[in-house]
Each structure stands twice: as C-alpha cells, then as structure tokens.
C-alpha cells in the first residue's frame, strides 16, 4: 500500500538555521502516527510545511502520490489535508456553527449570485452545509450543540475551543487530519475523553491522523506508530514501546528539561 502522505528529504531553513533538515516521513491510509520531540524540535514547522504555510527550502512532499510543494495552503486543504493549531486559532467573532460551516468552503460551490437570487441550489447547499456542521459538532456530544450554536466562539472554554478546532478541521472533509497538541491545556478527564474520540475519528470517520502531542499517555493510547523529532531530524520511529526505549530518544528528552503542555 502506498503511503497517503510521504515526505522526502524535507529541509526548511530560517535565517541560516535548519528548522527541518532532510526529514523523511510517511503515513499510510488509516494510520494514526504520533509525532513527539522536545520543544523546538521542529514539530510545528513540520505541520506548517505540509499545509504550505511555510515554503520548504528543499525536498518534496507528496500527497496521494502527487507533489504538493508550492501549492497554496487552501489548495492543500482542498486536496484533503486539514489541521489544527497548537495555540488554538478559531474565528473568535464568528458563531460556533459558522466556524464549522466556513470550513466546508472548499467542498461547496455556490457563489454570490446564488446567495443573491436565493436559488434552489443555493438553499439546498446551505441546508447541507448546516446539517453537516451539526453532524460534525454532534461528534463531541452535547458540548458544542444546542444553544451554543449561535454563540460566538470567544465565549467557549479552552477545552471546548480545542474541540471546536478539531470539529472545524473535520468539516473540511480531509483524508489526513493533522492535530497539533489536541489535549494541551485539558484536565485528565477531558484528555481521556478526547483520546477516545481520536480513536473514533479513525474508526467512524476514516481519517488518517498525524498528531503532535506532549502527553505520552495519549500518544501511547492511540498511536500505531510514533516518530521522534529532534533538531529537525527524525531520530527514531516505531511502536511506542520501541521508541520509548530508544537511547537516542531518552538522550534527546533528558538532555534538556521536558516541558509539559504549554
């Protein structure tokens, strides 16, 4: 089976510093891969490179066999890669429902004229967008549903903001979902709950998931495979148990103080 997302010799340089150097990586369809590494290892840059928010200096990124280097970020999303952000970046003044509705932009087609003339096609699509948004939000139980739909996102609690961000990414109907520290800032009960949800994201929604996470418990629970980054390079990969006993990894983590969630 060919990998859905593969990365070859990816290098990204910021002002002379290599944020990523010659990184190789792949994800197979339906896999859940955890990416770990100490702070500053280049994990978020790695996500930024995949979604093309940061241009690679050299190397290649292939999605379903085709190179996506140099595409606009929206185009990458359109192909089927969605992400969340480490420091939650919602659209705070839009309602919860709108946050999820807007994420379906690249899956829908109605233009201004449809809206102005209120065509049948437009109204049907609006209805579908709405239904789909509610469906996605319902995935998180009652937390984002009901009276909350019409509230602006900024009134949400931190945990719910994380949930909403995942919901927003789900709404783009991706094949690969990139989660950047999904349980950061959550209490143990909440993160256990979310861990279970991540498993269901694969089993029920069929997403392939790449997840950056500091919480080793979560990584252990859901990852099929773990990739360890340090100084922009892959220093180990394999199952959680393999990786956690790898001397390189231990050195990388003990060499500097390990920090928890931000």
């Amino acid at each position, binding site marked *: 089976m060919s990998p859905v997302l593969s990365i070859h010799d990816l290098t990204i340089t910021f002002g002379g510093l290599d944020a990523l150097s010659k990184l190789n990586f792949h994800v197979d369809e339906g896999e859940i891969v955890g990416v770990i590494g100490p702070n500053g290892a280049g994990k978020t840059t790695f996500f930024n490179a995949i979604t093309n928010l940061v241009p690679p200096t050299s190397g290649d990124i292939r999605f379903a066999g085709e190179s996506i280097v140099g595409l606009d970020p929206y185009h990458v999303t359109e192909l089927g890669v969605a992400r969340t952000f480490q420091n939650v970046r919602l659209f705070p003044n839009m309602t919860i429902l709108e946050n999820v509705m807007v994420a379906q932009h690249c899956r829908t087609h109605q233009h201004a004229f449809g809206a102005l003339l209120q065509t049948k096609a437009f109204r049907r699509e609006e209805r579908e967008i709405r239904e789909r948004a509610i469906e996605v939000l319902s995935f998180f139980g009652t937390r984002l549903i009901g009276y909350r739909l019409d509230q602006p996102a900024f009134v949400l*609690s931190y945990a719910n903001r994380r949930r909403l961000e995942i919901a927003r990414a789900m709404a783009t109907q991706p094949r690969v979902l990139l989660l950047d520290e999904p349980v950061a800032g959550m209490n143990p009960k909440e993160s256990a709950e979310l861990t279970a949800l991540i498993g269901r994201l694969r089993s029920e929604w069929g997403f392939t998931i790449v997840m950056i996470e500091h919480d080793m418990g979560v990584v252990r629970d859901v990852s099929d495979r773990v990739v360890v980054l340090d100084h922009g390079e892959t220093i180990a990969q394999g199952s959680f148990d393999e990786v956690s006993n790898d001397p390189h990894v231990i050195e990388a983590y003990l060499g500097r103080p390990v920090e928890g969630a931000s």
Partner: protein
Amino acid sequence: MSDTAPPKDLFDQDWRRIVRLGAITGLSLIFVALIGMLVQLDTRLIIRRYLSLGYLTIIWIPVVAGYLVSKEVVLEGVTPNRKGPSDVLAGALTGLVGGAGLSLLVVLIDNFDIRDPLINWSPQLLDQLTFAKGIGFGVVIWLVIGAGLGLFGSLSHVVPPLASRAVNTALFTIVSVSILETAITDLLQGFGLSFVTDVVYAKRGALTLTSALVLGAVVMAITVAASGRGRELRVRYDALDAPRRKTANLGLWAAGVMVLLVLPLFLGKIMNELLANVGLFVLLALGLNIVVGLAGILDLGYVAFFAVGGYTTAVLTSPNSPWISPQLPFVVVIFVVIIAAAFVGLAVGAPVIRMRGDYLAIVTLGFGEIVRLLFLSDWLSPYFGGAQGITNIPPVDLGFAEVKGSDPRSVFYLVLFFCAIAIYVSWRLQSSRLGRAWMAIREDEKVAEAMGINTVTAKLAAFVVGAILASFSGAVFAAKVGSIFPSSFLILVSIIILVVVIVGGMGNIIGVIVGAVVLIGVLGGPKQPGLLQELGTYKLLIYGALLVFMMLKRPEGLIPSARRSHELHQEEFLQDAWLRGEVDHDAEAGEGDAAT
C-alpha cells in the same frame, strides 16, 4: 450591588486625581475657547437668549469631569465605597479647577496680546468669556460655573439612578430637539402642524426657555413613567421563539420601510435634500462595510470607486462630455457603471490583495489619489474635462418619473432604491458561503487559508462588491448634482466614510446606517451641510475626535449588533446555569488558562 462599603469621609479625597482631572478639564476648556468654537458657534442658539451652541461646547466638559472623578475603576476583591457627599465635593472641586482654567484665560487675554499666532485670542472672546461684565466678574463666574457644573456631573452618582436617567434624557432631548429644529419644523409643516413649531421654536429661532423647560419636564415624566418598559420589551422580544421573532423582525422592517416611503412626502425640499445626501453616504458606507467590516480589508482609497461611478455616468449621459457623448439613458448606464466599477475594483485590487493589511491601506490611499489626479489632469482632460469637470448631466428619466437635482424627493427615492439593493446584498452575502469566508479572513487570514478558503479571490470579491455599491452612489450623485468635478473626490471622503462605518459598528448593517444618518445628517459630509451647518470648519475636528474616542472606548460601534446583545443574554444564562450546577465545568478550565 448590595455589598458596598460605607461612604468615604467628606475630606477623604483622592486629591491627585482631582487636580489631574481638573487640569485636563481646564486645558480642554481653554482649547475649545481658543479654537474659536465659543465665539463662532454663538450665533446658533440652543435656548433662545440663554444658551448658544458656543457655550454648549464648553459647559459639557466640567459635567463629564465631575462625573468621571468619582467613577472608580472597579477592582476585584475591593468593595467600592457607597457614593456620598465626598463624591459630590470631588466633582465640584474638579469643576472648580477646570473653571479656573477659563478664569486664567480671561486674565491672560486681558493682559497679553498674542493674537498674532492665536487668531482667536480676541476681544470678542474676552467679551464672551466675561459676559461683557468686566474682568473680575469673568474670573469669578467661571470658578462658580465650573464648580456648579462639576457638582452637577457628580450628582448622578448620588441621586437614584432613575432620577439621573430622567435628567440626562431630558437634557439630551432638549439639545436634540433644538439641533433638529430644521427637521422638526419641516416635518410638522408637512403635516400642517406649523403652529406647534411656532410655539416651540417661537417662529424659527431656537427653543425658548419656556418651551425647553416644558419639554424637559414632559420628557422626565415620560422617562419615569416608562422606566423599565424598555427592558421589559427587550426581555419579551428575547423570549420569543424563532418563528415569532422572525415575524416581529419582519414587522419592524416593514414599519421602517413604510416610514421611509411615506415620510418624504411630508417633508420639504431642505429635508429631502438632506435625506438624499445622507442616503448617498449610507450607500457608500454599506459598500465600505463589506470591505472593511466583513472582509477586514482597510481600503482608504474607497472614494476612487465613487469617482468611477460618477464619471462613468457623466461621460455616458452628458451632452457636454468632451470625449464620447452617447447620451445613454440612466437605466442603461447603470449597467456600464457596474462593469466599470468591477473592472477598476479588480485592477486596483489585484496588485494589493496579497499585501499586509496596513501596506494595503496606504497603497489603496495612493490609488485613490491617483484616480482623482487622473480625472483632474490636463493630460486626460480631453476625456474627463480636467478641472472644469463635466457639466449638464441630465436628470434620470425612469419613464414613469424623472429624478433630478431640483427635486430632492425623487433623488431620495432613487437613493433609497439603491440602498435597498445594498442592504439586501449585504444581508444575503453575510449569511452565505462567501460572507462566511470574508468573516474568516477578517478574523484570521492565515487560518482561513488553511481551512481551504482561497483568500485572494474572496478578498477580490469583497473589493468588487464594495466598488459596485460605491459606484451606484457615484452614479446617483452625478445625476443629482448635474455636474461633476474632481474636487468632490478627495481622500477626505474615504476617511469620513470610514468614520461612519466605525462609529456605526463594523460589520453591522443597521449600525452603519444609523451611523451615517446621525453623522452625515447632523454634522454633514465633506461638502454637504448637515443640520448643524454652523459647525463648518469644526466638522473635521469632531470627526477626528470621534474616531479616536470610538476606537478607544467603543470599538464595536454605537449600536451593538444583535448578535452581541444576544450573546450577552446567553452569557447570563450560562452563568446562571453554571451556578445551578447544570452545565459542565468548561468554565473552570477556561479560567486557568493563560495561553488564550
């Protein structure tokens, strides 16, 4: 509300605060006097023989200072003191210090002549400050007036809130009724009620003391009687279920539309002219609202599209057009205008759309100037008439009616038609795929792009829609004035529309409309007189001050959007529910988090 500490001792004052605020008050008073407002606005009376607009521009300052001095910053964990005599004393003292500023000015003007740089350092100012009763009187009277006004301002902390609200409403109404004299007279005349205005305004010349007092008393009575009714209505409205609320909204809208359609029939030329001018700015503001308010693109060259609409209409309809003069009917021209505006919108938008927001602002400002300079230039004067503009633009022939400048009512109806289009377009787009994309871009452009939105095309679409709405305004403007000159398209126009949008509330259709009506109607546009046309040169000063004030104190605009008030309501609900232990404990998680 109940847990307040007992009032402070009478002399337990925050002296530094009093002196600081007093000094600011004094400086503000001196400033207002020296920029000449006191003298120049003295001809516009608010209450005949007792109060002119000139004096009004200074007396509100100590009142506000008196109010502010004992308005504490509410700190968590500190129980505020109950308000009492010490607060009133603080207010009076602040006012006194402020008034001393004017006393000082009286002495200074009397002894030094620096009329050379300061043009308002004049005997008239001195006369006016001393009420022509001598220097000594002038010095003392301002101390007294200052203290009195400061005291009055601070009283609102002490008296029952209802009383203070009644007084404030009464004062506000008196001033508004006086400012709106032209409008009210005109309206009542339309209904054949001239005798009312003859009494109230004593045959056109500001309120009399009697009418002001009666008006104040009536308003106070109504305020007290109606106390709580407004809230009740609001609560009842919020309690409605969705379909009923929809019906209620529809009813409100229908009523509004009816009023707008019928009202002009009862108004005279002056008011219709004013309404037509206001309408042109509503149209511009609605267009800019899409660009700035929805999509978050700060376009400072917005006037360019207004100009394009105007000049396209002029060239295509006027027999005097220097270049081609097809003299097409307006109904045809409007489609050409749409195409021209869209084209210019794309041409201007494409190079700037990828720039950072603030670079974009300055570059669009440059484009606005380039467009004006091209229309003005001798180089293109064989096409657009240069400095001499294009004249003899014919009235709009609609077949069943003719819209021309000498009949402002017809112009108003035409503007209303275009405003309706603009409102419809804004409203429909706001809740569409494109509108959501705009809002996402406004909130966070990078994330919007990562969520699959092609930001370049979405922003260009906003640019083009805004451009088309502005060009409608330009087209009607050209037909209304009957001639068009480059001097109507200064940067100033862009800025004033921006102020209107900001004051009304970005992204809020109703707010923007109200903002335009209040600002353009009362203060006037860049070249259009408002109801307070005496303000003349101070208009821009006020616009500038208003813009700063709004940004600092009320960035969401005058009229909070429906969504916001709704959301406040919901927050209350959330709080209550949380107290009752019915909601999950998200709130706690949120509080402890610093990273947000």
